[in-house]
């Protein structure tokens, strides 16, 4: 690894000041499970002078339930989110998503803020510099997308345009389905937006002097059914080949409202609106689920090596919709 300095931030304000004063040469670190891998392999031509440690900010790791919902500090650890009895009971999709990430060791280090801000896992993008030189691709601002002609078995089947790396975050789809908001703190104060609006095809909307402060989730109603299912090649310590989070409002056997998000298949959490339209207002039986599954992948444009993901997505949609909890 190339050398860098390490400074502790004592408050969100101080972290933002440090980001500003290092002007692009400072990088935030929370659990470090993503960013240190990136630095060790020197995959990016830009290398920071300093890591700004957020973990020293007091109180930013809290998980608070109130009558209105759940507030999760950006530094809350995935292990704590997965084991919280309140989250298990009221927000099971989030609990399962957090539990599905990596290994017990990684989950005790990894934070929810870092999970949402983590970089993509495309193997061309992540190719280590010390093994013959990093690969400069479209996402790094220079060069083509190697995945288009290369081995793209784990790449996007929907929504990809110039870069086909998928959003790797498991918690992102669960939080989108739960209608979470994200609170961002920066030089110009705090702004709060629906989590769905946080993601962009090339990452997220964070400006260079901003950080994620908090996630806010409205309390689900009594009628809510939630599911999170992740398909991986290897059970633990693996990213999603495809995944689904859905939150359904079921009243008198009818689906009154639905939010379905797919992971591992697009550069952003993929909102399966067409599938939602099919199930809204009716009862959730086998033929409806089948139809919704087909709709969820309508318009998909697989690359040479990843059409198999479409079949997996269809199966996941069906399974999630027919699951009774």
């Amino acid at each position, binding site marked *: *690894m*190339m*050398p*860098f*300095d*390490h400074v*502790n931030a004592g408050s969100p304000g101080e972290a933002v000041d440090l980001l500003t004063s290092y002007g692009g040469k400072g990088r935030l*670190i929370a659990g*470090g*499970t993503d960013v*240190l*891998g990136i630095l*060790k*392999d020197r995959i990016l031509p830009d290398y920071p002078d300093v*890591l700004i*440690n957020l*973990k020293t900010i007091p109180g930013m790791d809290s998980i608070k339930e109130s009558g209105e919902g759940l507030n999760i500090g950006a530094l809350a650890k995935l*292990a704590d989110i997965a084991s919280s009895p309140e989250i298990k009971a009221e927000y099971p999709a989030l609990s399962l998503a957090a539990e599905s990430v*990596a*290994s*017990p*060791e*990684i989950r*005790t*280090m990894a934070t929810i803020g870092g999970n949402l801000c983590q970089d993509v896992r495309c193997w061309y993008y992540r190719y280590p510099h010390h093994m013959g030189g990093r690969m400069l691709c479209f996402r790094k601002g220079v060069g083509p997308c190697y995945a288009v002609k290369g081995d793209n078995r784990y790449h996007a089947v929907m929504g990809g345009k110039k870069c086909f790396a998928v959003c790797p975050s498991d918690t992102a789809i669960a939080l989108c389905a739960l209608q979470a908001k994200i609170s961002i703190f920066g030089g110009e104060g705090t702004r709060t937006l629906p989590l769905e609006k946080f993601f962009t095809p090339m990452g997220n909307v964070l400006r260079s002097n901003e950080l994620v402060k908090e996630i806010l989730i409205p309390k689900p109603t009594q009628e809510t059914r939630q599911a999170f299912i992740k398909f991986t090649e290897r*059970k*633990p*310590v693996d990213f999603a080949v495809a995944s689904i989070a859905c939150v359904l409002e079921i009243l008198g056997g009818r689906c009154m409202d639905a939010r379905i998000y797919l992971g591992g298949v697009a550069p952003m959490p993929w909102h399966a609106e067409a599938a939602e339209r099919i199930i809204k207002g009716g009862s959730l039986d086998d033929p409806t689920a089948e139809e919704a599954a087909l709709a969820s992948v309508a318009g998909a444009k697989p690359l040479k090596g990843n059409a198999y993901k479409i079949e997996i997505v269809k199966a996941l949609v069906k399974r999630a919709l027919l699951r009774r909890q």
Partner: protein
Amino acid sequence: MRDKAKLKMKVNGKTHSVEVEPDASLLEVLRDQLNLRGTKKGCEEGECGACTVLIDGLPVVSCLTPALKCQGLSVETVEGMEDGKKLHPLQEAFLETGAVQCGYCTSGMLMSSRHLLEKNTNPTAEEIKIGLSGNLCRCTGYVQIIEAVLSAVKKIKESEK
């Protein structure tokens, strides 16, 4: 070169003050500065678990932990597992069941198992698999490792009788 920084942390109950490079990982400080070579360096990317240690009782991969994040914290490594000259029941069980072949994964396995047994004194084989899911072994095929943990559970129960 950047300035070294002072790091004070407890390792296996003993307080250490060391001057470390700001970009040093906990793994490097343990092995190269404190001479605690039981903790192994495998992938250095968080994937293999060979470098697992406990910080304030919780398992982490020390390869992705900047040493400076351990300021004031308490670290436990495999060297701290035995009590005087007596091995920990987990260590005994690993030896007896043949859960150690090349041994590279062993210290990480032991630390994860230890954390698992602290949370859950009577785990099922499935719970052991989940608890050790972050630790890879290229030799044993895992069967003996799971047996070892189950056997350690028995040993611990018997010693408490």
